[in-house]
């Protein structure tokens, strides 16, 4: 079996506050393999970005990893010091953020930023780095890369800027790329371009991509596998096709049903009642139980289900049956 690029095992992140300890990430486990896009989807506050931050060692104090392992190509990275982390960030892990304007330095030309990153992480001369930078820009589809390498970030449009960010994330040839809402700030037509680009590069380079987003549509188009998060826990994990067209967890089922697309032709949209509980006020048992139409006694009082202890695609004591049998209900 291929070794995963990233392997997260039962990761727990806690934030101590005056009112008690919050767990924005609770016993989360997943693997990302080379050449694969794993989509992390969930609503705001579900802990999807926090997991990504833990992987790149950018948890903001006082949040910290309490237990669990993070393995990058088999090597543990969850207990590295800040300076050791700095070495693998950029080199082994590339990052793409939501707002391309803030992730580029406005005072340096695009070329300078690329060359700087390449020289820092790869053993090449300045001249070679320059050539690599141009190649990187060409690869992400920036026309006339040789001329535009001297331009500043503000001279690019939003979509082009996000391409530059992608080039920057990939130029040191990382094994893993973390893309946190990479298309949320972009228009639909540009979003399609960026998704296509990410998919192509992921496949060609064989890098693993963690694609964090709240948009089910983006997940459906881009990801190979998907992890659905709810209240800091993994609700469901599996191949995109299985999870989206045949969800086993009632939350995923509700989430899919409440998109306007899924209720096409209906007068009213399906909706999940209530909203996600705050981390400080998680219900006992399954975190989704108060909103779940299938919830039973054990869901509300028993221990919380995790994918590890229910041994299935969904962290649910009563995973939904196959879609076909459900629709005949």
């Amino acid at each position, binding site marked *: 079996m291929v070794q995963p690029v990233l392997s997260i095992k039962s990761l727990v992140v806690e934030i101590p506050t005056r009112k008690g300890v919050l767990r924005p990430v609770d016993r989360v486990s997943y693997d990302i393999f080379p050449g694969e896009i794993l989509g992390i989807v969930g609503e705001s506050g579900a802990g999807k970005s926090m997991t990504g931050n833990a992987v790149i060692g950018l948890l903001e104090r006082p949040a910290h990893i309490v237990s669990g392992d993070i393995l990058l190509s088999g090597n543990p990275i969850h207990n590295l010091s800040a300076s050791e982390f700095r070495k693998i960030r950029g080199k082994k892990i590339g990052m793409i953020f939501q707002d391309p304007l803030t992730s580029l330095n406005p005072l340096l030309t695009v070329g300078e930023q690329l060359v700087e990153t390449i020289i820092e992480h790869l053993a090449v001369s300045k001249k070679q780095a320059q050539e690599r930078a141009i190649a990187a820009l060409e690869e992400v589809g920036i026309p006339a890369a040789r001329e535009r390498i001297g331009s500043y970030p503000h001279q690019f449009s939003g979509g082009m800027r996000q391409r530059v960010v992608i080039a920057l994330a990939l130029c040191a040839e990382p094994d893993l790329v973390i893309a946190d809402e990479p298309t949320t700030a972009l228009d639909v037509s540009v979003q*399609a371009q960026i998704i296509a680009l990410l998919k192509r590069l992921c496949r060609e380079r064989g890098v693993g991509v963690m694609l964090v987003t709240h948009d089910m549509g983006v997940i*459906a188009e881009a990801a190979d596998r998907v992890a659905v998060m709810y209240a800091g826990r993994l609700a469901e994990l599996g191949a995109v096709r299985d999870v989206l067209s045949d969800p086993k967890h009632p939350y995923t089922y509700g989430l899919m049903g409440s998109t306007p697309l899924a209720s096409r032709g209906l007068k009213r*949209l399906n909706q999940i009642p209530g909203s996600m509980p705050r981390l400080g006020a998680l219900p006992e048992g399954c975190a989704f139980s108060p909103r779940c139409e299938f919830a039973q006694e054990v869901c509300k009082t028993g221990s919380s289900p995790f994918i590890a202890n229910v041994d299935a695609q969904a962290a649910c004591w009563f995973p939904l049956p196959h879609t076909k049998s459900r629709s005949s209900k």
Partner: protein
Amino acid sequence: MSAIVRAKALRRLFDVSKPWLNRVVEREPKAFLTAVADVDFEIEEGSVYALVGESGSGKSTIGKMVVGLTGPTDGTIEIDGIVITGNDQKAKIAEARTKLQMIFQDPYASLNPRWKVRDIIAEPAKLRGLEIKGLPERLLQKVGLSPEDADKYPHEFSGGQRQRICIARALSSEPKVIVCDEPTSALDVSVQSQVLNLMSDLQEQLGLTYLFISHDLTVVEHMADKIGVLYLGALVEEAPKETLFASPLHPYTRMLFDAAPKLDAFGREVDVPKGEIPDPINPPAGCSFHPRCPLATSKCKKTRPQMRLIGNTRVACHHV
């Protein structure tokens, strides 16, 4: 049915010139951004009219002009037959304006954090001189919150609940037309569906008219009766929902439909749309979509297409 909102040749420019001194020194002319260019549309009473478009399409500017937050540079807006964009008959205009309300995009910025929910909801009614005793409580119940919430402050509510409060505030002055500017784009999917359902229910119960502004085609498809597609400030296509989704005519509309992510398109290899939205300060000559259009010919580069009626659809393209 009659049109309750009627916009004619609506045009809005924004002055984006540098400061006066710089302009004189650098000998540059004044620069203008055309946010809205010659837009005509009518909204039937009791219907939902949606404006879709990407950033810079002018959809929010149109919404602001309809409620009177900003005036048009040219053109007129009529509400219930009264022109509200002129300067004469101030009393009549003020009266017509009371029929308008707005729901905003960002539920965190649209409620005054220092006010109690009760006062927030009552304010529009109070200003109209309506009876406000018990009104906030009634409206809160109507939007699915509890009457006790009236004494809380906005920060005690989640995004979806705040948007419900915004809806309650909009209803309190008993408007006929509500402009909804991206009302759910800041909300999570499961909350979005709750808010959209609430808005549909209220529209039906109270016979409201919505001008629904959004960039999200799936939301628009669910909510709207009639849809206008905007590109760079101009209406490129307008049709009843069914017609538009069944047979989009304008190449831009088609591109939008193709580019929108779909839930059942696993691993779909899309025909990636070309290019990006051009700079609105210097839009392309002729049809502003021609640099990205697969059908563009030399005619498109020179003359701007006029709106034509084809079946149920109004479309601005030389090639349909």
